[in-house]
């Protein structure tokens, strides 16, 4: 990296900090901080949702998986786009009409106050972990690209400006800066993409090279056989994406900032439509790199290598400009997430637990403090991740798939479509589904494949153990892809538990007619 590159990134970071401070003047009451005063229009929403969605996880993490496994990881993006469009048409208008600020607030309307507080606190913590993963990717990329091996310093560089301007400027800062950052993200991707394809000799030549080297799976959208990202993965990720677009606080909160339900829906649909073709811009450079420079063992290091070793050859300052796009992607995601955690903590935990209604000034003080607290937790998680060896994409999928799906089940499936569901059923389904999902991912599936589960199964019934062993023989080679069943286990368990508990319990005198009126 040259001095010019550092100067470009420095000016960009300074500009963002300054803009955050200026925008803070727009914050007069808590709704301005949480949902930008509900003033946002479709194209602004399209930009802010897309910029929130895109982060270094896409450019570095998914590009890296494209490098290692091939183009099929694009389904993670595409299923998300489909889900955004569906959610914009069917779910967002209902939630927006209810004028809620968060999913837990909807859960209070639908089920009970205690469920709101519990899920608000839980979801806030889960978002901090998620943010830690994003920060880890950014800091790793910083180390690889610049060669300055100070992981902690990179954590600070990426997080401090984001924490500062989201704590001061709230949802207004997020919306305005996201629109600017979206342009930078796209510009960066539009520079990197043709350079990578050019270095690989063009798309046709790349395809011929993979075929000649017996690695045509790299360019198969749906790989056949036992690949990690086969049809089972696509189905699992479709389920997770549906959850993400319908209950993810970070995405929904942007849509809740819409001027009216119709504009919220339009913003979501626009975001889904534009991200679909753009996904090629961050997956294909990774795929091309498999030809340019094979042999990188950690997939998270592949795209940083491309940026640091190839981009400077095409002109001075190009790397600096592309890095601005990457920093923009990262900061837009971090700020939106911090804003959401602050909303959850203030609106769903502090405001509900406190018996007396706080003043607007007190609320703003608490929301800013919780933004800072979230930032500190995020740095802590990212620091801890340095000592793990799993790729960031897999860590992300494990957390999202297992913990989040039961929330989708109780909020959308039961919350909107089955009036008989009780708060006891919803709570049992959420925690029971999550617990079983975690067990299947970390205990049941691995222990089944290494054989250590058989004595336990034999103790239950020799017949069950014999059949389990026979099935193991049939699916040998599919060990890794079987981990994709964890999201189905957690959501399936949530469905069964919620149904059973709701049928044996009764919700007394709870008024949720308001919810049905909004259909």
């Amino acid at each position, binding site marked *: 990296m040259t001095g010019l590159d550092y100067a470009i990134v420095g000016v960009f970071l300074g500009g963002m900090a300054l803009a955050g401070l200026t925008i803070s003047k*727009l914050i007069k009451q808590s709704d301005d901080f949480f949902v930008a*005063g509900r*003033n*946002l*229009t479709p*194209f*602004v929403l*399209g*930009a802010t949702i897309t910029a929130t969605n895109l982060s270094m996880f896409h450019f570095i993490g998914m590009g890296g998986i494209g490098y290692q496994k091939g183009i099929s990881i694009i389904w993670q993006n595409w299923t998300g786009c489909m889900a955004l469009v569906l959610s914009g048409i069917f779910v967002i*208008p209902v939630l927006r*009409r*209810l*004028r809620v600020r968060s999913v837990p607030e909807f859960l209070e309307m639908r089920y009970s106050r205690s469920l709101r507080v519990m899920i608000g606190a839980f979801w806030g913590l889960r978002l901090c972990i998620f943010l830690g993963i994003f920060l880890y990717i950014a800091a790793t990329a910083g180390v690889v690209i610049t060669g300055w091996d100070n992981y902690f310093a990179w954590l600070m560089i990426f997080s401090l400006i984001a924490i500062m301007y989201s704590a001061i400027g709230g949802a207004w800062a997020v919306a*305005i800066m996201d*629109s600017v950052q*979206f*342009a930078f993200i*796209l*510009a960066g*991707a*539009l520079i990197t*993409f*043709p350079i990578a*394809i*050019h270095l690989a*000799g*063009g*798309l*046709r*030549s790349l395809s011929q090279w993979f075929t000649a080297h017996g690695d045509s799976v790299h360019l198969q959208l749906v790989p056949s056989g036992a690949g990690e990202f086969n049809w089972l993965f696509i189905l699992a990720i479709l389920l997770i994406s549906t959850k993400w677009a319908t209950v993810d606080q970070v995405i929904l909160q942007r849509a809740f900032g819409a001027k*009216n*339900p*119709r504009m919220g829906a339009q913003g979501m649909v626009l975001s889904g439509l*534009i991200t679909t*073709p*753009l996904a*090629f*811009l961050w997956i*294909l450079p990774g795929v091309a790199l498999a030809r340019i420079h094979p042999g990188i063992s950690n997939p998270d290091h592949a795209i940083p290598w491309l940026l640091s070793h190839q981009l400077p050859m095409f002109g001075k300052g190009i790397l600096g400009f592309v890095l601005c796009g990457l920093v923009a992607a990262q900061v837009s995601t971090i700020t939106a997430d911090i804003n959401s955690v602050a909303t959850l903590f203030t609106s769903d935990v502090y405001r509900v637990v406190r018996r007396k209604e706080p003043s607007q000034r007190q609320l703003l003080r608490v929301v800013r403090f919780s933004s800072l607290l979230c930032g500190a937790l995020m740095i802590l998680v990212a620091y801890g991740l340095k000592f793990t060896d799993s790729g960031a994409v897999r860590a992300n999928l494990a957390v999202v798939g297992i913990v989040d799906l039961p929330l989708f089940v109780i909020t959308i499936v039961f919350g909107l479509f089955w009036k008989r569901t009780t708060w006891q059923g919803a709570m049992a389904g959420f925690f029971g589904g999550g617990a079983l999902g975690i067990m299947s991912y970390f205990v049941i599936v691995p222990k089944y494949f290494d054989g250590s589960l058989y004595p336990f199964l034999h103790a239950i019934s020799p017949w069950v153990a014999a059949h389990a062993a026979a099935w193991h023989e049939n699916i040998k080679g599919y060990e890794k892809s079987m981990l994709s069943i964890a999201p189905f286990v957690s959501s399936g368990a949530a469905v069964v538990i919620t149904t059973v508990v709701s049928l044996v319990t009764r919700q007394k005198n709870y008024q949720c007619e308001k919810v049905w*009126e*909004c*259909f």
Partner: protein
Amino acid sequence: MLDWGTYAIEAVGLVIMCVWIVVPAREFKRIFKSLKEKDEGSSFSVQRSSSSGDAEPRTRNEERLK
């Protein structure tokens, strides 16, 4: 060496980038103008209540009627 596939992806990306620079800039301009007018208006008159007819529709039927 670039081929038509690369050019097509690049062109779609460029169009989206241009549209998303121009349109949000106009929309923000409009939002800030209306916020400014609202601020000036509120210093002269009592804040409007939700029954003034400007309130947001709460149900699908209200939305249709509006």
